[in-house]
């Protein structure tokens, strides 16, 4: 749910990184945080819990600068990936304006990717939203593993599993090295800001 503050000329959008457990959602945010200029990024919020899994969510507020006099602020959220945290995942998804689906290329996680995307679709429907109508970008993460002996899925396989219906933009990435992280964020930011402004501002500001 976007928030548009006409008095301060601010637009707030919420982008949620979704995906199965341990696919690298939090790593994406950490990477964005560490490489962005101080004036553009806010304080990264992680809820400290034992272990390296996200139990609730991570939040990174960003300031994208001004477009036609409107200050664009984006809040990046991650959801907990593990299947059992379904309730929390749904909570974080509340009011999302844009989505990044982070896919795990490990052979053994193939089913998890498909399940997670289905879960995303179901949860959105419960908020009355259709996945097809939302700004969405898919990131094929962990491409750095391709050259290792660990069995991974090819981009074609991932494409067939996850993107055959949507045909949305996809990015190959390696969140640990930073490859593809910004490209993903840039694309989803554009789509999301367009989506929100199309809905509310365009016709008023012209």
């Amino acid at each position, binding site marked *: 749910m976007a928030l548009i503050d006409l008095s*301060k000329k*601010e637009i707030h959008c919420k982008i949620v990184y979704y995906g199965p457990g341990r696919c690298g959602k939090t790593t994406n945010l*950490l*990477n964005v*945080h*560490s*490489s*962005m*200029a*101080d004036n*553009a*990024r*806010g*304080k*990264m*919020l*992680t809820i*400290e819990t034992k272990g390296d899994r996200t139990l609730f969510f991570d939040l990174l*507020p960003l*300031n*994208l*600068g*001004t*477009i*036609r006099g409107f200050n*664009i*602020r984006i809040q990046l959220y991650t959801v907990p990936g593990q299947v059992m945290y379904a309730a929390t995942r749904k909570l974080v998804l509340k009011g999302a304006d844009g989505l990044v689906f982070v896919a795990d290329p490990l052979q053994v996680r193939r089913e998890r990717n498909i399940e997670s995307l289905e879960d995303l679709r179901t949860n959105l429907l419960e908020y009355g939203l259709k996945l097809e109508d939302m*700004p969405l970008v898919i990131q094929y993460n962990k491409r750095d593993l391709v050259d290792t002996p660990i069995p991974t899925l090819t981009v074609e396989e991932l494409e067939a599993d996850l993107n055959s219906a949507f045909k949305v933009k996809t990015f190959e990435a390696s969140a*640990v*090295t*930073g*490859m593809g*992280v*910004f*490209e993903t*964020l*840039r694309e989803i*930011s*554009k*789509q999301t*800001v*367009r*989506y929100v*402004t*199309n809905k509310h501002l*365009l016709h008023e500001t*012209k």
Partner: protein
Amino acid sequence: MTDNGPDRDFHAEIDDAIDNLFSPQAAAPQPQSASPPSAKQESRAPAASTPTKDESLTASMLSSDGADAFSPFEEALLSLDWEISSSNIDNARSALKDIQGNFDVDKAVALTEIFSLMDRLLEAMAIAPQNVSTSAPKTLQEGLQTLRAAAGAENLSLIEQTLIDPTLSELRSSIPNIPKDYSKLFQTAASKTHGVAGREQKTAAGVKAAPAQAASPAPSGSEEEDLVLELPGASTPAKSVAALIDAVNSHLTILGKCIAKRIVPVENLFAKTPGYEKLHAIHTELRERLERQKQNLIKALGADYQADAAAPVDPPLGQTAQSGSCPWNTVTLGTWGGKTVGFLPDQIVYEDKPAARVRKCGSFLPIKMLKRGLFGKIGFVVQGELSFHDEATLKTLTIPVAKSSGMEESALKTGNPLLILFKENSGLAFWLDEETEQLDTTVGCRWETVSDPHTFVAGNLTAKGKTIPVITLRGV
């Protein structure tokens, strides 16, 4: 999301802005060198706040926006709903007094009982919250609603049956250790003592009712009439004012000594002992309350107050027999094993005919057997010193049963009343032959202290031609 015609410019603008923002970093990402941020890493979030007017903020705000005289009390109750703490209770009690002060005199008089019961309930919550029914905060809320309605009502008789009476009965049933029939208490008040709670009840209501009598010579409600007519002072017109002043003065002296020598040391001991925080709080509460009570009495006495009034001396132990007047003004008489014996009303924590199964317990009596019904609480049936202990403690308490040479256990009849004495963590139970009566020892009695510290008998009282041993737990 396809661009169409005029929107294209705007979209291009969005793309440019975002490209600009990301391009320097995208061109030269340095993720490896950057340490992952933790929650501690401080870079201030873009503050989405607007400057605040620098007003002087005061806590006094009651006269503004629609708050009425009831608001402070309502607020205090809402705080109590969350936490029963002494400060929340104090706030509620003072707010309640303010409400009473704001009422028309006539209505205030008619509602005296509600005010005093609500105050009693709050007081009980302060002293022994474990004994107060869990619905107490709700009952107080209902009391508040009734008071609100009463303030708005033209004639109180209109809401008497629908609101006032149900509220009164709810309040009565919420307050622990108080007989349901409030007015009866006053008829018996002069002659019978009900343990700590009962006595305070007398004082509290007496103080409340006295100004009511002055303010309105003929209160309308029948219950209020009882209240005024049955005041302890009014029911003993024979006693002169001077005698009463003497009694109060000596009472004050004893009270002062008790606080200094008994309560304060125990309170200090509890304060130093880990795990006794609750008992410490209870003791502190008790001391403060007694001190307040003392101040009230001193204030009421005014010029008649004597700081060093002669106090009846506790019978000292290990001394030779002393004769003179009895150290206690009232002694409870009972027949035990065929003999008449005396007990101190202060020490009696239980006197009733308990269920048949209690009779079979032999020489040790677990207190928990005394509770009534499946969901009853022990705290409801005991009084005096025991009522200050919490339920968990009471559950574990076992009291020895005194054996009399004149009575065998098998001779216990179903109708025998049970009397339990308790003082400073020691107790003793007695199966009496019949119910007790009170003896006024101020006239026609002779007292002889017994010096033997190994007996429960503190001394012998000679009255009506009989010698009555007075049993106390002092010498244990």
